[in-house]
């Protein structure tokens, strides 16, 4: 009986809520706009809610033990972990040669996101500083290369380290004003920072090309030889002529993929080392208790800045690579939704968990590509996945098993 009452109430509430949205629709008739009621939709909605509410208690009662138990990362000793990592790496190198062009392209995109998410993981996962403007550093990296090419004719390899340095510098700059902030306040300021960068890029028309961006950015060269059909400079040799291969665009795609793989791999190794180092311990300690840190002589300012700076560096490297891959940068690529996506990857993977983050990057990049026909519902599905995750597995796909220094007891 109680069930029926609550189900009835829920149905009535649904009715009230959806009448203005679905029940009354505006239709244009000539020059007039009329309100046309669609009561059947409302009734169906109410009926569905009523039915679901009625059976809901039984659904949950019958299976009290149902929980999503995703596999934990099996604990391996360091040697077999390294072996496994090596095998995966080798497989990832060989794979594109037997694969289609679009798959390799998507995989490259995945690797860019892996890199970004591992960078953000340092800031959010390890140091516990919620950063919603991470895409700003990504943009800085991309535009560093683009602008250096556009104004000074720099190549990718010269610009790559500088892109990292410039992004690191921006991370450092942002770090200063936000040092005193935590949690929500920090999130708002970083969100603002990401937007400031994007708006600057749009409005510095003379310098950055505004909304049009910068195009014609060259792809990375191979030891100084271009990977193109024809050399851009008269008389120069391309890589294919050097190797006496027949040119195919697939080669370029694979080359870019391999580069992304190397960059992502380096990011993984570096961030993996960082957590085990004193600086990584300090990040985690700071996340736990800032006051205790200070009482032990740890300078919170420096620790936070180092997290911001290192995280931004990886974003910058990723950005420069992104610019090279696209051949075109414009502010459209660096909207807030990108920040949200990267953050979603980190949260979905399990904050601080590197394997989880990689897995989540794959899921969140590949799924939308597979479900292209549902493109309209992409954000809806995305939101749904996040909500479900937060309900069932708030700690992420593969919750972090922190790397611990262990000593034998006695």
């Amino acid at each position, binding site marked *: 009986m109680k069930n029926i009452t609550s189900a009835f109430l829920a149905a009535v509430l649904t009715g009230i809520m959806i009448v203005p949205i679905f029940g009354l629709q505006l239709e244009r008739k000539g020059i007039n706009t009329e309100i046309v009621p669609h009561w059947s939709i409302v009734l169906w909605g109410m009926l569905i809610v009523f039915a679901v509410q009625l059976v809901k208690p039984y659904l949950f009662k019958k299976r009290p033990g149902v929980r999503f138990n995703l596999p934990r990362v099996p604990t391996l000793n360091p040697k077999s972990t390294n072996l496994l990592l090596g095998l995966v790496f080798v497989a990832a190198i060989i794979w594109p040669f037997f694969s289609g062009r679009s798959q390799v392209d998507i995989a490259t995109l995945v690797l860019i996101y892996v890199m970004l998410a591992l960078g953000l993981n340092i800031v959010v996962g390890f140091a516990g500083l919620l950063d919603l403007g991470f895409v700003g550093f990504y943009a800085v990296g991309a535009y560093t290369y683009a602008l250096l090419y556009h104004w000074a004719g720099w190549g990718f390899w010269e610009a790559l380290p500088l892109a990292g340095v410039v992004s690191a510098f921006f991370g450092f700059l942002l770090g200063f004003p936000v040092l005193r902030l935590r949690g929500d306040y920090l999130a708002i300021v970083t969100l603002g920072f990401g937007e400031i960068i994007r708006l600057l890029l749009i409005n510095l028309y003379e310098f950055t090309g505004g909304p049009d961006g910068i195009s014609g950015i060259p792809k990375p060269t191979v030891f100084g030889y271009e990977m193109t059909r024809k050399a851009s400079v008269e008389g120069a040799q391309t890589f294919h002529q050097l190797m006496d291969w027949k040119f195919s665009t697939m080669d370029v795609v694979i080359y870019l993929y391999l580069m992304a793989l190397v960059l992502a791999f380096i990011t993984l190794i570096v961030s993996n080392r960082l957590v085990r180092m004193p600086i990584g311990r300090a990040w985690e300690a700071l996340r736990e*208790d800032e006051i205790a840190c200070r009482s032990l002589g740890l300078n919170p300012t420096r620790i936070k800045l180092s997290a911001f700076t290192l995280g931004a560096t990886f974003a910058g490297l990723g950005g420069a690579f992104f610019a090279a891959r696209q051949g075109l940068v414009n502010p459209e690529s660096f909207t807030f939704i990108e920040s949200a996506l990267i953050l979603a990857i980190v949260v979905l993977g399990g904050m601080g968990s590197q394997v989880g983050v990689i897995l989540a990057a794959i899921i969140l990049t590949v799924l939308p590509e597979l479900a292209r026909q549902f493109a309209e519902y992409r954000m809806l599905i995305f939101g749904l996945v996040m909500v479900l995750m937060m309900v069932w597995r708030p700690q992420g796909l593969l919750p972090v098993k922190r790397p611990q220094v262990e000593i034998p007891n006695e």
Partner: protein
Amino acid sequence: MSEKILSVDGLMMQFGGLLAVDSVSFDVRKNEIFAIIGPNGAGKTTVFNCVSGFYKPTAGSITLNGKAIAGHPSHKVAQHGLVRTFQNVRLFKHLTVLENLLVAQHTQIKSSLLPGLLNLPSYRRSEKKALNNAVKWLDFMGLRQFANREAGNLSYGHQRRLEIARCMITNPCLLLLDEPAAGLNPQEKKDLADLINQLRNEFDMSVLLIEHDMSLIMGISDRILVMEHGKPIVTDKPEAVRTDPRVIKAYLGEE
């Protein structure tokens, strides 16, 4: 008379209209156990917070080993060798016991980024040293068997001991203990008294502590400062403090 480690002179701390600490002066000598007692709200913890740099005192000077430290940020003060524990234990709860002790050595580890990233011998040496140091203190505190456990899962008494170990591992010259006996059972209190004595005798430590437990205070302190309503009443030896009429009045009221 041995040299002074810490001297506090005319310390004042005002929060808006409230004068929490009013012209408090005292000094802690080398190798001395100095206690501050007083009824609740007397301003003891405020004095602690000023001395350890968590508050910026309104007026007065604080000198540690001849260096003026009043108004310095807390991590600077800690780097000068003055470390503290907290009334409600502040461990890094989700880090293991061992890691708590490793983090505490952060300022002593000369670490730059590159040797660590490349896992160079110099880096491995310094990590090994930090680990040995941590193990030494775990053994000393009898916490070795809990080394790989999360610090938050320890019993309260062990957490207290770990917090003290975490301070000691930074090689301080003065240890500040804020109500170290709060929440301990009689046996643990006795162990604590022994521990504090041991730190003084074996490690040449000077200790400044706040405590409510009179038997502990009277047993281990060399001198005691009694505070009431933010003002110092008496500074003297335990026996003298025990019978001082002003102290009895502060604690028990007047007839």
